[in-house]
C-alpha cells in the first residue's frame, strides 16, 4: 500500500515535470536541458525568501514561481531567440542549453553552497493514515496541485486563443507566422508557463524530501524519459509514460534495491528506443529515424 502511494506521488511529480518540459519542447523542438535548473531554482528561491527575508510562506512561493518564470523567459530571450535569428543547426540549441545549465547550477552552488537544504515549513507532522499507509500533508498537496495544474493547463491549451496558438506554433511555426501569430511571442509564453510549472514541481518535491543544487537534473531526466516513452506530442502518452516510469522505479526499489532505480529508468528508455522508438502514441517524428 505504501508502495502504491509512493508510486502515485512520483507519478504526479514526473507528470508535472514532463508536461512542463513538453510544453517547451513542442513549441521549440529542442531539448531545453537548462529546464533542470528552473526546477531547482524554484525550490531555492522559496528557501531564500522564507529564510533570509522571513516572508510569509504562501507569498514567497508565489514570488519564487514568478522569479523562476522570469529566468526561463530570460533564457529564451537572451540565448535561444538570438540563436534562431542566426539560424544555427538544431544540435547547437541542446549544447547551448547544457552550457546554460552548467552556468546556472554553479551560480546556485556559489550562492547557497552544495550541501543539502531543507525548506522548513511550519511543523513536522506524522502524516495521515490512509488504510495502512502514511501520507503527509505535503504529499496530499502535491497530488492535488499536480492534478489541478495539469487539468488547468490542458484546458488552457485547448479552449483559449493563446493556448490554441501555442499548439499551432507547435505543429507549424512558419505557417503561424504567415497567419499573423508571432511564433516568438508564443514561444515566450510557452517558456513562461513551462517554467512556472517546473518551479511548482521543484518546490513540491523539495518540500517532500530535500534539495541540493543538482536535484533538478534527475527529476528533469525522468520527465524527459516519460515524454519520450509516451511519444512526443501526446498528452495521453505522457500520462502513460509517467505511470510506467513511476511503477517501474518503485517495483525495482521494492524487489531489487532502491539504488537501481535510475538504471531501471534508462533501461526502459533504451528498450523503448529499440522496439518502439515512436513511443506509445506511435506518432512519427522525423528525428527518430533517418
Amino acid at each position, binding site marked *: 500500500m505504501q508502495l502504491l502511494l509512493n508510486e502515485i506521488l512520483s507519478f504526479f511529480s514526473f507528470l508535472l515535470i514532463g508536461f512542463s518540459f513538453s510544453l517547451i519542447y513542442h513549441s521549440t523542438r529542442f531539448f531545453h536541458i537548462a529546464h533542470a535548473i528552473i526546477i531547482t531554482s524554484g525550490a531555492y528561491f522559496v528557501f531564500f525568501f522564507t529564510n533570509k527575508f522571513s516572508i510569509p510562506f504562501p507569498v514567497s512561493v508565489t514570488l519564487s514561481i514568478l522569479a523562476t518564470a522570469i529566468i526561463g523567459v530570460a533564457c529564451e530571450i537572451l*540565448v535561444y531567440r538570438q540563436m534562431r535569428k542566426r539560424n*544555427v*543547426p538544431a*544540435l547547437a540549441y541542446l549544447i*547551448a542549453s547544457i*552550457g546554460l545549465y552548467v552556468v546556472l547550477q554553479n551560480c546556485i552552488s556559489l550562492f547557497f553552497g552544495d550541501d543539502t537544504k531543507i525548506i522548513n515549513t511550519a511543523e513536522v507532522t506524522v502524516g495521515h493514515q490512509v488504510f495502512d499507509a502514511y501520507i503527509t500533508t505535503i504529499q496530499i498537496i502535491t497530488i492535488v496541485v499536480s492534478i489541478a495544474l495539469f487539468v488547468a493547463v490542458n484546458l488552457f491549451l485547448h479552449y483559449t486563443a493563446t493556448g490554441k496558438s501555442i499548439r499551432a506554433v507547435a505543429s507549424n511555426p512558419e505557417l503561424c507566422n504567415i497567419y499573423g501569430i508571432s511564433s516568438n511571442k508564443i514561444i515566450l509564453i510557452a517558456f513562461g508557463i513551462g517554467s512556472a510549472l517546473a518551479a511548482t514541481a521543484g518546490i513540491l518535491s523539495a518540500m517532500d524530501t530535500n534539495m541540493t543544487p543538482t536535484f533538478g537534473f534527475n527529476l528533469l531526466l525522468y520527465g524527459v524519459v516519460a515524454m*519520450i516513452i509516451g511519444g512526443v506530442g501526446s498528452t495521453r502518452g505522457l500520462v502513460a509514460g509517467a505511470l510506467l516510469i513511476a511503477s517501474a522505479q518503485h517495483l525495482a526499489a521494492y524487489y531489487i534495491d532502491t*539504488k537501481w532505480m535510475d538504471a531501471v529508468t534508462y533501461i526502459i528508455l*533504451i528498450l523503448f528506443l529499440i522496439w518502439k522508438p515512436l513511443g506509445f502514441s506511435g506518432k512519427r517524428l522525423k528525428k527518430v529515424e533517418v
Partner: protein
Amino acid sequence: MEYILHLFILICFYTLLSQSLNLSAGFTGLISLAHAGFYGIGAYTTAILSTQFGFSFWLNIPLAMFISGAIAFIVSLIALRTVEDYFIICTLGIQVILFSIMNNWMDLTRGPLGIPGIPSISLLGFSLDSKISFLLLSLFFVAIIWFVLRNISKSGFGKTLTAISEDEIYSQSIGKNVYLSKTVSFTLSAMFAAIPGTLYAHYISYIDPTSFTVAESIFVLSIVIIGGLGNLTGSFLAAAFLVLLPEALRFVGMPDSIAANMRQIIYGLILVVVMMTGKNGVKELFTSKAKRIA
C-alpha cells in the same frame, strides 16, 4: 614543481579524453555524453585486473581498451538507431547506467568505497613512481593517439566520417556504409577513452565512481566544443586552458571553493557563446570563417 607536473599530467589525460571524443563527436557528428562512462570502464577494468589478478600495466591497456570497445559496440547498436538530440539523450542514459553500475555493483566495483591500492606502473624493471617519469609516459600516449587520430582524419575512412557529419543521406547515396562507419567511429572513440582511464587508475592508485559522472562527460564534451569539432590541436589547447583555469583564478586571489565553481561558470558561458554564434570552437569566434557543426 611536483604540483606543476601533476597539472601537466592532468592536461595529458584531458587531451587524450577530448581527442578520443573528437573522433566520434567532431569527425562523425556523434555528440556523446557517455564518454566519462567509457573512461570509467577503462579505469575500473585496470583497477580490478591489477588488484585482484596482479596484471601489469602493459596487459591492462589492451584489455581495458577491448572491454570498453566491446561495451561501446553493444551500446552503439542501440544508440545509433537514433540521431541528433535523441542520440545525445540516449548516450546520457547510457552514462547514467554505467555510473549506476560503478556505484552500485558492490561485489565487482565496491561501489562508493572505490578501489584502493592500484600498483604503479613498472617499465623494464623500473617503477614509474616519480611524477616526471609518469608525465613522459602520458606524453608518449598523447603523441601516439594524436598521430593515430590525425592519420584517421586524413584517411579515406576519415573523409567518410566527415561526409557523414555533413550529410548522412548523401553519403549513403554514394555507397558509403553509414551505419558501419558510425559504429566503428563510436567504438574506436570509446577504446581510446579507456587509455586515459588506465593511466588515471595507475596514477592516482585509488578510484571511485565520482570521477566518472555525467558532469565529467559534460566537461569533456565542452573541451571538444570549445576547441572546435574535428580540431585535434584545438582539443589540446582547450584541455590545457580548462585545466589551468582554476590555477589562474587562484593566482588572482580567488579562494579555492569559488574557483572550482567559477571554472564551470566560465566554460559554461564559453559553451553558450560559441553555440549562440554558430561557430565551430573559440578559434572561429575571432575569424570570419563560419563552418557550421552537424
